[in-house]
């Protein structure tokens, strides 16, 4: 079997809340391989977000190691970790985290502005392609506050994918979306996983979403209880394509509208 893209070994993380020490991760060991579509499942406070932050090199463990492509991130400088995140890892947030003063194009452009690997001439094509992939081509010049929740999440996905990362992390990406939009966002993620072989690792509580993944990692009280779980229902064999026009679930403005 190929070596894992990300490998966590005995990772511990404890937070201090005032005088109280709160263990968030307690000896987590986990491998993520290229092209996997993996859900991270656990109750609130079980350490899902902390684990995602470890995998995404956003946070550092107190103990244990995190290897990305075989390199121990503890040995990287802060700037090197930033570059690693920029070039290899995409992040999707539960509350989208778009920059409100930037339009769709500019939000998607953000990671590329500092990506030395993508020449400026190539930048525009990649941004437009990423926006097209999430079917927001008609909303390129819209500001985030003119978009629906589903559309904003698709912008966040485009931003995560525009650098062609090997791994996309998503922290409850559908938690703020209605069920119809959730379905389409998951379709999109599955489609990108299959077409681009992008590794997806995301936390969720959504049973319907869990039912569509190939692998489920269960976490409880900071401990992985099952790293190779299988969903209760079979995964959709043929991911549906996202429709070109906004739908009821997206609830956004019509394409071509002005800011």
């Amino acid at each position: 079997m190929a070596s894992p893209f990300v490998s966590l070994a005995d990772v511990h993380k404890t937070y201090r809340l005032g005088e109280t020490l709160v263990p968030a991760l307690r000896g987590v060991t986990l491998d993520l391989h290229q092209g996997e579509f993996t859900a991270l499942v656990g109750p609130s406070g079980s350490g899902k977000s902390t684990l995602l932050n470890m995998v995404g090199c956003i946070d550092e463990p107190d103990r244990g190691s995190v290897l990305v492509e075989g390199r121990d991130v503890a040995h990287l400088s802060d700037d090197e970790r930033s570059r690693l995140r920029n070039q290899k890892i995409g992040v999707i947030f539960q509350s989208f985290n778009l920059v409100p003063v930037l339009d769709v194009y500019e939000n998607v452009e953000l990671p590329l502005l500092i990506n030395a690997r993508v020449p400026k001439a190539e930048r525009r094509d990649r941004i437009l392609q990423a926006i097209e992939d999430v079917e927001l081509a008609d909303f390129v010049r819209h500001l985030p506050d003119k978009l629906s929740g589903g559309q904003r999440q698709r912008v966040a996905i485009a931003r995560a994918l525009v650098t062609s990362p090997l791994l996309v992390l998503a922290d409850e990406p559908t938690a703020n979306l209605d069920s119809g939009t959730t379905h389409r966002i998951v379709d999109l993620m599955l489609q990108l996983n299959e077409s681009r072989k992008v590794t997806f690792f995301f936390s969720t509580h959504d049973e319907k979403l869990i039912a569509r993944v190939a692998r489920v990692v269960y976490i409880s009280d900071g401990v992985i209880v099952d790293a190779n779980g299988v969903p209760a229902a079979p995964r959709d064999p043929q991911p549906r394509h996202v429709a070109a026009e906004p739908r009821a679930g997206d609830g956004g403005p019509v394409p071509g509208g002005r800011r």
Partner: protein
Amino acid sequence: MTDGWRLALRNLRRNRRRNGATALGIALGFAGLSILGGYVTRIELFLRTNTVYLQHGGHVAVYHAEGLEKAGARPARYSLTATDQVAIRRALEGDPRVEYSAGYLRGMGLAGNGCRTVPFAALGIDPGVLQRNVRQPDVRRISADFVRPVRGGQLFDYLDVDGAVGLAAGLARLLGKTRTHDDFGGPAAAVVVPDCGSPEATAQIAGDANVQLAALSFDGALAAIDGEVVNVFHTPTTDTEDQTLYTTLSTLQRLYSTDAVTYVAVYLKKWREAEPFARDLEARLRGVGLGVVAYPFTDERVSPYYVGSMTFLQSMVVFIVLLVASVVVLGVMNTGTLTVYERSREIGTFRAVGYTRSQVTGLFLREVTLLSAAGLAGGLALSHAVATGVRLANIRISPPGVPGTLQVVLTPGPAVYLALVALLLPLSILVTWLVVRRRLQERTADLLTATTA
């Protein structure tokens, strides 16, 4: 516009009221300090022209080694002899920094009008140099009122008048010489006052322009000459109004029976070169065996009024600048802190997508640079508007210790503007940098979950 600057501009529009207030604070601070700088610049120029040209101190004054302290009491011992003057002139010849130079003789004695005798302090001046001094552009621009005699003409217009003297207004009043040479259409016949106590005595004393000057000559003999009052003037400082007398160098040398001078004043093309020039000149003169001291006009020993006034002004300016700059900096810091804390989640997002701490800091520094630039530009416009208004209003003040009035001009020069920009802009950037860096020290994960988003 590059992407970072575009983003900064957009972010500034996010909270227009707060950023507008901050920019206004910067503008007011800049304008206030500019106007203060303009005022101080003007006062400094006034004091400098007074010291250098109107009091004839020159940019550099060369005295006998102990001449500054002792020439008054023992002039023969501590003045510059004709030989010294030749050596000094030779040292100055061909120096591109020198515009011109002149010897001056100071002396004391008694001035009389036939009835009354009062002490005087005289300065013997080369008329040609006097003419050059009063025609200096800065003198004409700043002190035109002060070089114009109250009565009569300039000393250099009376080269054909034997013993021509100018009296300070206070001394003229004490001597009862209210009219000058021109009022009589030429030398008037000396009026002998038969009874100084009679009611007619005052009119009789004013009936001619003649004064008698008596002094001890350099060789210790009692000497006296007749003087013809050709003008009455105000001295640059009021404390010398009752005793100052100007005459030609040759007239005073005749009174003291000497060819010596008390000091040689050197007038430079660039006033900022005074201190290094003085050091250089003194070294050169000492090198040829001349025991002299060269004082730049910034030396308190020769220019106590200039140095004292400037020291006070500079202390005041430093205090006010610190005060205003602190207010501006606190305003920027307050805005920066609020902005950074409000946008913590955004900072976390930037970090999460791969921005380094420096890159995120750079985004905020661009914002504060634009904000400060807007404030500084507004302050520039405001200070110009105020300066123009004050100039048009023709407000006149009487500087302490100076006879006459001076128009208040607040126009700051480019140097003041540049100095303020060089102070306020880096300070604003620095405090923002500190605020942002401090926030960026926090874990990205914490920033992403910050509640002040």
